[in-house]
């Protein structure tokens, strides 16, 4: 039994890291722009479909451009739609991004049809390795390593670059950042675009594992919201810890109470919010209270 628990724990961590990648984008968009981006799952789906289309036309390596293209679409959406919502009633942002999510699903269905489209991992990542009781596929190891590298790079970007400092400062007090003469509209566009790029990257990495359908956003958006809530709104470290917790909790529930697997992360969220209403790493920010 211990072997099985260990095996499930490792598997849960891999799933957790994939969730973290999606949730981080949602977290920084909320933290900086104050927008609850209900369309985040739609950008995840856009990333997967772009990967499918690029792979079909130009091969697997071309699919790696999918997240960048998703980020550019995100920048366009921010300029055309999202920026009109800053400082307005938060409900407006929720309604607009919800409508955007529905529209994206309809457009994807129009272009690619409603049926799932096939997409496989490249051949050099096929197969799996076993370390005692632990079984892990080469592709999941690739996802794990890629996610960790990106998270470290992103953390370094936020911690050590001037742009990262502006984002962190802007997430606390955007007005003050604006008064310092920093071009906030460009910063906001960049943040939204990076968030969408991360969602698109999640879509690319999940495409060989999950089913690519226009409605695939649902499989990403709910865990992402749960992770952001558990970790604390806008917290980078919180999202990582919460993502791993959700992944491992889900895997363990499947091992012992499989019929509760779908509800496990919500029960975890409710429990943590009861103990710590701001989430694990949430701080008291006047902006959101």
């Amino acid at each position, binding site marked *: 039994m211990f072997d099985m628990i260990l*095996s499930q724990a490792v598997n849960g961590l891999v799933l957790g890291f994939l969730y973290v990648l999606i949730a981080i984008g949602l977290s920084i968009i909320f933290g900086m722009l104050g927008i609850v981006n209900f369309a985040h799952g739609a950008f995840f789906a856009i990333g997967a479909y772009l990967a499918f289309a690029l792979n079909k036309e130009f091969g697997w390596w071309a699919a790696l451009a999918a997240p960048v293209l998703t980020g550019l679409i995100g920048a366009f959406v921010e300029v055309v739609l999202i920026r009109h919502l800053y400082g307005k009633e938060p409900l407006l942002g929720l309604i607009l991004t919800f409508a955007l999510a529905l529209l994206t699903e309809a457009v994807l*269905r129009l272009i690619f049809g409603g*049926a*799932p489209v096939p997409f496989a991992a490249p051949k050099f990542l096929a197969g799996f390795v076993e370390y005692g009781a632990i079984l892990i596929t080469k592709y999941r190891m690739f996802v794990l390593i890629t996610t960790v590298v990106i998270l470290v790079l992103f953390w370094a970007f936020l911690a050590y670059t001037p742009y990262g400092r502006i984002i962190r400062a802007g997430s606390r007090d955007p007005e003050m950042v604006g008064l310092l003469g920093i071009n906030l509209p460009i910063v906001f566009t960049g943040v939204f675009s990076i968030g969408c790029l991360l969602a698109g990257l999640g879509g690319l990495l999940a495409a060989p594992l999950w*089913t690519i*359908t226009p409605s695939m956003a649902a*499989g990403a958006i709910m865990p992402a919201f749960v992770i952001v809530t558990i970790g604390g709104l806008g917290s980078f470290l919180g999202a990582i810890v919460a993502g791993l917790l959700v992944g491992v909790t889900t895997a363990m529930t*499947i091992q012992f109470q499989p019929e509760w697997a*779908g509800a496990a992360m919500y029960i975890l969220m409710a429990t943590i919010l009861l103990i710590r209403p701001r989430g694990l790493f949430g701080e008291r920010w006047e902006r959101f209270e």
Partner: protein
Amino acid sequence: MTEQTKSGAATGLRIGRRGLLLGATSLAASRLGMPYIGNAAAAEPIKIGMIWAKTGSIVDQAEYLAQGGMLALEQRNNTLLGRPAEIVWLDEPNPQGAQQSAERLVGEQKVVGMVGGALSSFALAISSVAKKAKIPYVAANAATGDLTGKSCNKYTFRLQPPVDVHARILAPYCATIGKKWYLLTASYAFGQDIKRAFTDYISANGGTVVGADEVPVGTPDYSSFILKIRAAKPDVVIGGIAASDLTTFLKQWNELGMKGKIPFAEISVGNTDLWGVGPEAADGLYTITWWYKNPNNTPEEQAMAAAYEKKYNRPAADKAWMGWLGMKSLLDSIDMAKSTEPGTIVQALENWKYQRGDMDIGYRGFDHQMTSRLLVAGIHPKITDKWDYFDVKAELPKTPDDIAKAFGSQADGACKMDTL
């Protein structure tokens, strides 16, 4: 006369020549117009309700079901009983949404019949509205036993064979592979019926269930379930997960190196589920209701498949056929009834027959279940055509007696049919 004219002029009632001419012309025009107005009333379109998912986890199958249904009406030049006919298609995001759509179709759109219910839970919800509103309803995709069992009613007809029938056909195949089964089924009516049917079979035939997991709908990652299956070392895995959930499972089954290691079997699978998996990961032993390349397809089915492919530039999936046949049975019955009166259509549906090879397909009177054969199919060892995955092994049951046995008798079922 002169006095009368004068008197009329005095009272202001005088009608001049121009007025008279205008009045006469108007009267003539209105007389001419009357047949036109009468025809317009007669040409009021007959509305058929269609409830297939436009959002949610079953939407990929629903697209084909809807296209098949629309094709059935187009093949009649959108005409019924000499009047224009149209389909009103509403969404079914969840069981409650399906019920609301059915109520809207009946209350607002005044439809004369309904087709739909992509998932068992949706079909049960629509069926309850059909019963209450007394409107004929054809459930063309749902497989739960309840629909023609304990929840049956006079207005509901079901096209898909129920889970028990699929299980009676596939379970003996699985038992020849091995007696240790692992069940991975969805946590709603369809999956629970599969779990019960296959457990009953293997228990009665000297086998054991070495593991059974109920999986939430929309599970994005099956790797933890697959690790459990791997550890349990079953001879066969029996699946009971639908649509894109099955696609996801098969992709991850292959990814974790399980394809070809432990046989996987599932009933009532659709073409689209496998098309989304891709040739590398496709695997399994299945029952399917129809296959576009089956040489036993009737000329009418072949014509439908050709029309579908021409229109949508892809082969007709089994779901397109189910949507088509479900709608066709309702439209045929309206024509047979020569009326849009619900009770007459229900009686026509009970008498509707469709010749398929050596047997007449139709809805049984005592539970409104359509009886037909099923196909048992594996996957081609090497897939070269991106649409052609199935390797059909048999069309079962073979004889009419065996068909009747597989579908069960009135005494075997839980249906207590009500009256009109």
